[in-house]
Every structure is written in structure tokens, then in C-alpha cells.
């Protein structure tokens, strides 16, 4: 019983946080958000995490850019 409760509560928390992130235009999907939540719950510094996500996004963009470039070259 407590396990399911906890799960439901966690689900709810993710829901709420996702909504907040939408309000704030954070552009986080549910999965990323839940990964982040779990990391923070494990004591990761939120500021550092924010930086990480930004960095990763930059990397992703680069990859896309490269992909687009190679696609265009072909």
C-alpha cells in the first residue's frame, strides 16, 4: 500500500513539476524531468544540473546541425 501510494504521489509530483516547467518554458519533457528529479533527490546540485542540461542541449544542437549539414551536402 505505501509503495503504490508513494508511486502515485511521485507521479503527481512529476505532473505538477512538469506543469510548472511548461509555465516557465523550460522545454523539458516528462522523461528528462523525471531523470532530473531523481538526480536531484540523490543530492545533485541543481545549479550544476541546469548547466549540464544546457550543455547537453548545445551538444544536441550541434549534432542536429551536423546532420542537417551532411544531409544538405548529400
Amino acid at each position: 500500500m505505501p509503495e503504490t501510494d508513494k508511486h502515485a504521489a511521485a507521479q503527481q509530483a512529476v505532473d505538477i513539476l512538469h506543469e510548472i516547467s511548461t509555465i516557465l518554458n523550460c522545454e523539458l519533457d516528462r522523461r528528462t524531468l523525471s531523470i532530473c528529479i531523481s538526480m536531484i533527490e540523490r543530492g545533485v546540485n541543481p545549479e550544476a544540473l541546469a548547466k549540464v542540461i544546457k550543455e547537453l542541449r548545445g551538444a544536441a544542437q550541434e549534432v542536429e546541425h551536423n546532420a542537417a549539414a551532411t544531409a544538405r551536402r548529400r
Partner: protein
Amino acid sequence: MAPDRITNAIDSLITHIVPSDPNASEEATQERHDTCFELVKSILESPPSPAISSDVNHASDLIKRKLIQSNPSQALRFSNLYSRLLSLPVLEHKWAILYLLYQLADSPDPNEPLPLSPVKPSAPNYRDAISRDVIKRQGRERTSKTTRHEEEQFKDAFQPEGLKSLPPKVKEAKQVDEDGEPRPEAPKRDVSLKSTLLANNYSEIDPSESVILRDLPFTLQGLSSTTLPFVKQYTLKLPPTLPLPLVSLLHTLAEPSLLFRGLDEFCKSPAKGLLAQSLRAAISAELRSYLTLIATLEGQIRRALASLDEDAPRAGIGKAGVTLKRCVVWTREATMGLRLMSLIAEESEKKKGGQLVSLIHSFSSSHGDPVVAAFAERLLGSFTRPFYDILRHWIYDGELSDPYQEFFVREKAPSEDSSKGKGAGNVWEDKFEIAKDMIPSITTQDFAQKVFLIGKSLNFIRHSCGDSQWVEDYSKAASKELRYGDTATLETWIDEAYKTTMKRLIELMANKFHLFEHLQALKNYILLGQGDFIALLMESLAANLDRPAGAQYRHTLTAQLEHAIRGSNAQYDSPEVLRRLDARMLQLSHGDIGWDCFTLEYKIDAPVDVVVTEWGNRQYLKVFNFLWRIKRVEFALLSTWRRCMTGVRGVLQSSDPAVVQAWKSTRGVLAEMIHFVGQLQYYILFEVIESSWGELQKRIQKEDCTLDDLIQAHTRYLKDITHKGLLGAKQDDRTSYMVQLGEILRLMLSYRNSVDGLYSWSMSDFTRRQEADIRSTTRHDDDAALPPADQVPSEFPALQERLRQLGSSFRTRLQILLGDLAYQPDVDMRFLGVAMNFNDVYQPTRRKTKAAPSAGSAAANVSKG
């Protein structure tokens, strides 16, 4: 906790966020994954920033504030969500998650293409892009829509903490304006996106804003710094690497710096006068308050820079509360002040004294901008102090302490006096003058005139009347601090001072210097008012004055004068007056007799000569000489008349009808002449002098009569006398009354000489006849009588002819004079003509042409008469 779980999480995060490139090889993907992993690891393991407090409310506050700014409607929703979140039991680090979300806020949407690709600084069109942006933004800022927000910014900026944040309204307005036209959907997101993007790219400028901010206070104080060195005196060099928006900001900030430099130098430059000096003092006081502002600004900048967060976008300057833009806003009002001051400083180079006061006063009174007016008003307060000091000295001490000639009263240049010759040594008129162009616009002309008079009077009382004691007492009693501002009070004080001073001056003139007695004495003696004295003087001097001018001696003249005084009522006059009476000879010219040169003089000394000026003295002399001549002619005519009258009874009896006829006509002409002289004297003494005297008395007895009024009244009096007394030289010389009367008087004198000749001829004739009678009774046959009898008739016709000629030319001239008088604009003078010709015995002739009038009319009159 378990590091492997974190590693797992990181792994999944990377794979989730970074998509695998379908074209890249497996190794490459793996490699990328690894580098990302390393990067993430290193970031996560770096020590956490101490700035974050682990308070759940703090993070939510941050979010809330952000939402209120950008999107107030969402804020409410957020607080609902937030309270629900709090009620959940599961999460331990709620604040951290919120903080994470806060940090990630306004991320670009990875799914849609970027609305604004971040422009890389390396790109060649970087500057162009920025400048386009700047131009667009400036254009937008200039539109009137933003002014309201600017005002608010202003208000915020001047609150002690400075701009905490941009007011939300501004943000909205900007959103509306962002693309020129409002877009109903999704513009908010665009803006936040763009600002984030901008923020991310901002820190790439060199030197960074924080460096510039650090150097800014020095620049504002006019000192060179590494980033913003002053190249030349008035040139500030901006770093060439800055983007255009910053450059334009720095341009705005450079203005107060350069103005301050200029003004600082102006203050250090040597002043040419007291007012210029006080202008410099006032400006430097203003500069000091400007420096205080800069010091506060510097404090703000220091504090903000100390709390800077190096890692934040734009090096965190946006949050610190002090940016270059904010500095521009803070220095705005000061810049206005500096601008105005440098304008004044520039203008003041060409002006001095009162003009300078006028210049600044014109700013305060007629400038449309209330800020400028208030500023100028404040400047005036301290700036005009020396002016009011001078004014105070002037109206309370009567001293002109104005070493640089800035006051509107100044001492007259001494060279002018001698050239004018009208009143050398006239302390009242010639010592000070008013400089019209130096009267500042804070005082009116009337007021300046009053001030001028007060000071002049005090100076006069002190120096010419020798009453410095009174002046000192007065200045001690009345002296007040004069300041700019309360014009009404100032005016009442000036009025008061004016009244006191004038009263005192008139009192001194009347009681100490006997001005009015002197005027009376002048009238009595010089204008022949004292009849018995003049008659006695003339009688006793007559024999003496008939002799040539060279044979006149001063001691005889003064002796006769003394005799005349003793013998007449003049002896009861005050010795003060009699002491001044003197008889002397005018300059001799060849052939003059005593009558022509004799003059009576009344000596006027120091303070009174202000009223009876040298010019006045000359007028008096002129009138005296004229009257003296008339008197003399009258005297001569009357003595001849007396001789004739007594002679008729004895020696003049003749049996020859021609001789009897000649005597008869001679007596007639003599009577005419005596009538003329009598009328003339009466007219001048009673109609002219007495009535003018009455006017003068009326004027100077007025209640608020000033010395100036006195002088004016006296001048008017003399002018009246000389004008009405036929002495004015207004017409050209040939026709002036002076010349005509002189001619007539000369005619009368020569007529009288001829009459005397006729008298002596009659006498000799009489004696000859008597002798002949005796001879005829003793020796009847003696014919020695024949030769003298031949001589005598030859003399008589010549005399008769001469008398007839003189008589007729007298008549002619008199008729011309009457003709002139009849067409006089002045009633009194016309009346003289009427009095002389009351029974129409003369026909006044109006002269029409100036050429040879006397010859023709004389001939006509001769034939008529």
C-alpha cells in the same frame, strides 16, 4: 548516495537529450557520448556555488517574481501548483527542483526551428546586425509610447536603491513594440527567448561591461582610465571593440564627463571681476554636488561589482542593479545642469558685471524649462552675492567699492569734464554716472535710478558737505543684509533709504549751506532785485565808469560797492551773503569804457555750486550785464532829460523857431526812449524774473523735493529768465533779440550823446547871444560877431540831421522788434510788445526777407514820419 545510479541517470539523460546522429558512425556517437559524459561529470563534481540557499521559499520566490514580470496570469497558476507540490510528501529537495526549473526557464524550444539564431561574434555581419538592432531600438525608444515608462524608470532610478528591476509595464510595452506591431499570440515567449539569447551572448564583449562600469566614475570625474582614456582636452576615446549599443550608451555618458572637464577648467581659470569670480565659485559649488553624486554612483557600482556573479549571463550585471544604462539614467539630471552651466560659462566670457547677472536671470525668468529655471534661480542666489555687497555699500555708505566696474554706477572718466567745460568740478553731476548696459534685469530702470541717487547723495553728503558723521551713523543704523530673492523687501528698503537720504540732503542744503538764501541774494543783487542798492551803486560809479576801461581800478570799484551797501537796505543782509558780493572788471578789449566791462559778482563755493553751476553763474552774469546796460541807458537818458528840463527854463530858451522845433522833437524822442526802457525794465524785472522766481519757489518748496529736482528747478528758472528776458540765442545771430536790443540801446546812447551835443551847442549859442547882447549894448558898431555867426549855423543843421536820423532809425528798429514780438509763441513776450505799443503809436513791421530790411523800412518810415 549511490554514485552508480547517478551515472546511470546521466547516461540516460545524455542519450535522451542528445540524439544520435543517424549519419555518424557508431564510434563517433560513442565518442560524443563519452565526451558529454565527462563534461557532465566534471560539472557536477565542481563545488556548489555558495550563493544558493537551500530554502524552498527562496526558489519559489524567484520563480514567482519572474512570472509576475513576464506573465502575471501564470503566476497565480504557479502558486496553486506550488502549494500542491508542497503538500506532497515524496520529494525531499523540492527547492532544488524548483531552482533547476528556474534556471532552465525560457529555454529555446528544441522541436521548433530557432526563431532567432544566435549571432556569432565571429561572423562578419555581427556588427551590422547589432547596429541594425541598435538603430531599430533607438527609433523605437524615441517614439512617444515609451515616454511614460521612461518617467517611471526615472522615479525608480532615483530611489535610494536604484532600479531594482525593470517595471513590468515596461516589459509589456517593449513586447508590444518589439516588432513594430503588436502580435496577439506568443509574443511574450519571443521576448523572453530573445532576452535570454541576448543575455547569453552579452558577456563576449571586450572590455566587459563590469570593467567599463569600474572605470566609469573616473571618467565622470574627468580622469583618464585604461578603458576610457581622455586623448586630448575634450576628447574621450572609446574602446573600438565595443558593440554599437554600448558605444551609444558611452556617448551619452561621455557628455557629462567632457562638460565637467570643461567647467572644471573654467573654474580654475582666473576671473576678471568679482562677479565672474563668484560665478566660478557658484559653478564649482554645483560641481561639488555633481561630484557627490558621482561618489554615490561609485559606491553603488562598487557594491554591485563586489556582489557580481561571474558565472551568470552577462557576468550577472543584469541582477546586480547597476548597469551602464542605469548610470545614464542616474546622471541625466546632472547632465542637464552641467550643460546649462557650460552654456553660462561660455557666454560669460564676453560679458561682465550686470550683464552677467542679466544673463543668468534671463535663464531663471524666461526659460521655458522649469528645471533650467530652478537651476538658474539657485545659481543666482550665491552668484549675486558680490553684486548685492556692492549695492549695500553704495546705498548705505555711499561708497563705490567696485574695483572691476561691474556695478551699474561708475565713476565718470575725468577727461570728459575738461572737454565739456560745462561743469568742471561739479561733484554732483560729474562724479558718477549710470551705465545703462550694466543694469541687471533683476532691477528696473526706475529702481536703478533711485539706487544711483541714494548712493550719489550719500557720497555727496560725505565728501562735499563734510557730514561724514551723519553718513556713518546712518549706515550703522540702517544697514541691512541684501540678498537675491525678496525683491519686494529690497524695494521697500531702498525706498526708505531714498527718503531718508534725500531729506537729509535737502536739510543740509537749506540749513547748513543756506542754499535758499544764496538764491535770494543772487536775485537781489545780480538780477537787480534790490533797487535802492543798484541805484546807489550806479550813481556813485557813473562818473568813474565813463572813463576808459583801462583807467578802472579794482579798489575804487570795491570801495564804491561798499559805499552802496552801506547806504542801502543791503546793509541789513547777512554778512555771509555780503561777503560773497564782489565788483570787478571783465576782460578789457580796446576802446571799451568802464560801463562795458563792469560786473558784479556773487561767489558761490563748494556744495552749493552743485545747484548754481558754472553754467548757471554765466547765465546770471549774462542777465546782469544785460540789465546793467538797460539800467545804464535809463540812467543816462534820465540825467539828460533832467538837464534838458532844467535847461528849458534858462539856457535853452531861444528865439530861433528852428532851434525850438529841434528841441521839441528831441524831447519827444527822448520821452519815447524812456518809455521803451521803462517798459523793458518792468517787463524783465516783474514779468520775467519775479514770475520765474515764484515758480522756482513753488518747485523747491515741495515735500519730496530731491537735490536733482532742485537743480532742475533752478536750471529751468535760469532758462526761463534768459529766454523770456530776450537773451536766448535761439534764432540766428542777426535777428536775435539780444542783438536787436543791443542795437537799440546803442542807438539810444548815441542819441543821448547827440542830445548832449545839442545842449552844449545851445549853451554856447546862448552865451554867444548874451555876449552879443552885452556887446551890442556897449559897442553898437562892432561887426566882430559875424565870423562866429557864420560858424554856428553850420554846426546846428548837422546836429539836427543826426538827431533826426538817430531818432528815425530808433523808431524803425523798435518797429521791427515789435513786429517780431507780436509773432512770438510766448504770451509774456507778446505782452511786452503790447505794453510798449499800447496806444498804437508804432506800426509793427513784420520782416519778411532778411536781406537789407532796415534800409528799406527806414526809408519808408522816414517818408511817413
